């Protein structure tokens, strides 16, 4: 079974901006007054790029992700996805949350097919695709199981399939492996890297884990504490595919230390 049909159509194009974030800021209005969540930021993410955002809790990472999905409106500035300004949910993204968020009354395959149903896409055609995706993440034979019959790691893989099934250009992941044990997490990282290389999606992933960020990313964005802003951007020079051995590579170690310094400095301030 080939997975070439899972690739996005535009792999040969030159890297062009897919997500453009221009002077975007977010302030939450609460009963106790305004709570600034994000300071104005500018980010451009290119086609097929894997960008990972690291930052402490409450620095507005999730806010940023929800704004890109069109679930939240920015207070200032503008977000463009593929050239279109985002004002409402636009369906051009797949989302993976920290917990798998599978619908417990739907079997695995029906969960993966949910975006297809919502959008009214041709069922038969996308069913094949859903089955291919499940096979790609090693869940062949689990199509008819209910979510509770799967382990946490398997559930999260199903939710990744669901984020990919309608072939979105962009996948947004909000600490997708945060709830998994360390060993499963490492395995999922290797697997996600493989999925990205096979599907050529543009991925924006949020994490607390610096090694995870460096392992996965083409570029790591480091965010400051609340209200969040981009503190630094680090391109990751490690070549792909990266195996788990990369974790002991001197380049990897140097980069993680450099990033970690941002947070240890912030604490001693």
């Amino acid at each position, binding site marked *: 079974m080939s997975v070439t049909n899972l690739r996005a159509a535009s792999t040969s194009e030159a890297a062009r901006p897919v997500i453009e974030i221009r002077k975007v800021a977010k302030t939450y209005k609460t009963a106790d007054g305004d709570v600034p969540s994000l300071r104005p930021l500018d980010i451009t993410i290119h086609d097929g790029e894997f960008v990972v955002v690291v930052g402490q809790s409450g620095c507005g990472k999730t806010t940023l992700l929800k704004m890109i999905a069109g679930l939240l409106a920015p207070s200032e500035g503008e977000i463009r996805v593929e050239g279109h300004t985002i004002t409402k949910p636009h369906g051009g*993204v797949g989302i993976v949350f920290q917990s798998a968020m599978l619908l417990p009354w739907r079997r695995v395959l029906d969960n993966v097919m949910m975006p297809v149903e919502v959008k009214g896409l041709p069922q038969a055609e996308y069913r094949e695709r859903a089955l291919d995706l499940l096979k790609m993440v090693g869940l062949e034979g689990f199509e008819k199981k209910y979510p509770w019959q799967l382990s946490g790691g398997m559930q999260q893989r199903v939710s990744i399939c669901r984020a990919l099934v309608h072939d979105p250009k962009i996948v947004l992941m909000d600490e997708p492996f945060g709830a998994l044990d360390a060993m499963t997490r490492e395995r999922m990282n290797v697997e996600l890297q493989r999925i990205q290389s096979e599907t050529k999606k543009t991925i924006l992933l949020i994490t607390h884990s610096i090694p995870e960020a460096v392992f996965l990313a083409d570029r790591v964005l480091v965010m400051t504490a609340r209200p969040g802003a981009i503190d630094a951007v680090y391109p990751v020079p490690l070549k792909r595919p990266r195996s788990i051995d990369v974790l002991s590579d001197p380049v990897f170690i140097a980069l993680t230390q450099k990033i970690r310094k941002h947070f240890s400095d912030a604490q001693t301030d």
Partner: protein
Amino acid sequence: MSKGVAHRLLQAAWLKPILFLVMLVVVWDLSIRVFKIPPYQVPKPQDVIITLYQEWPMLLKETWPTLNATVWGFLLAAAFGIPIAMLIAGSKTIESYVYPLLVFSQSIPKIAIAPLFVVWFGFGLFPKVLSAFMLGFFPVVVSAVQGFKSVEPDMMDLARAMEANRWQMFRMVALPHATPAIFAGLKVSITLAVVGAVVGEFVGSSEGLGVVLQRSIGNFELPTMFAALVILALIGVILFWIIDLIERFTIPWHASQRNDLVIAA
């Protein structure tokens, strides 16, 4: 071999409550003997069983009106309660107007207003149905509101990010999510609907088990009264069991219905 059969019988789910019931009846009988309770206070179990057997045609005839009122009251409670819960959960405005009044109305003892129904609607079936409805309505609303409101915001965000419209979000996420809570409410509701129907019969009716209860206590026919109570309890149990059965078929995925093993570690 026979030991195996006996063991398997003991494991059967339906047998356990019956065994317990037999134990209770034995305790009942022993208490009467030991504490010398006179039969005009508590009848002997065997008298109740004999009455059940002898009076069965009469009791059965009086069961139908009560059962009828119970089922109609319950169906109305479900038919109104679930949509009202949907409205309350779906709109902050409706919630703020309706919900406090609904809770307020529940604090009124329905037994006290049941005679009003007779004044308004006479001695027929309708006041009994209304009484059963009044008792069965509130638990359905409360549980269903709870169910609709407890959908995780991330789950809703996920559907919104797929560009789901309000109807799709309701049909695919909110309603299935609320179903277990709705069934919990329906189960409470059906047992209360039995009470409601009997209350309706107490205050004004010419037929039904409620009438049997009143008549027999008036005539000190305690075995007949206890026989009617046994039948009322059976009605409650059987209706409850039917809803439980429907629930099993409706939400096989829910934690309360899982008897499968987790197949993957």
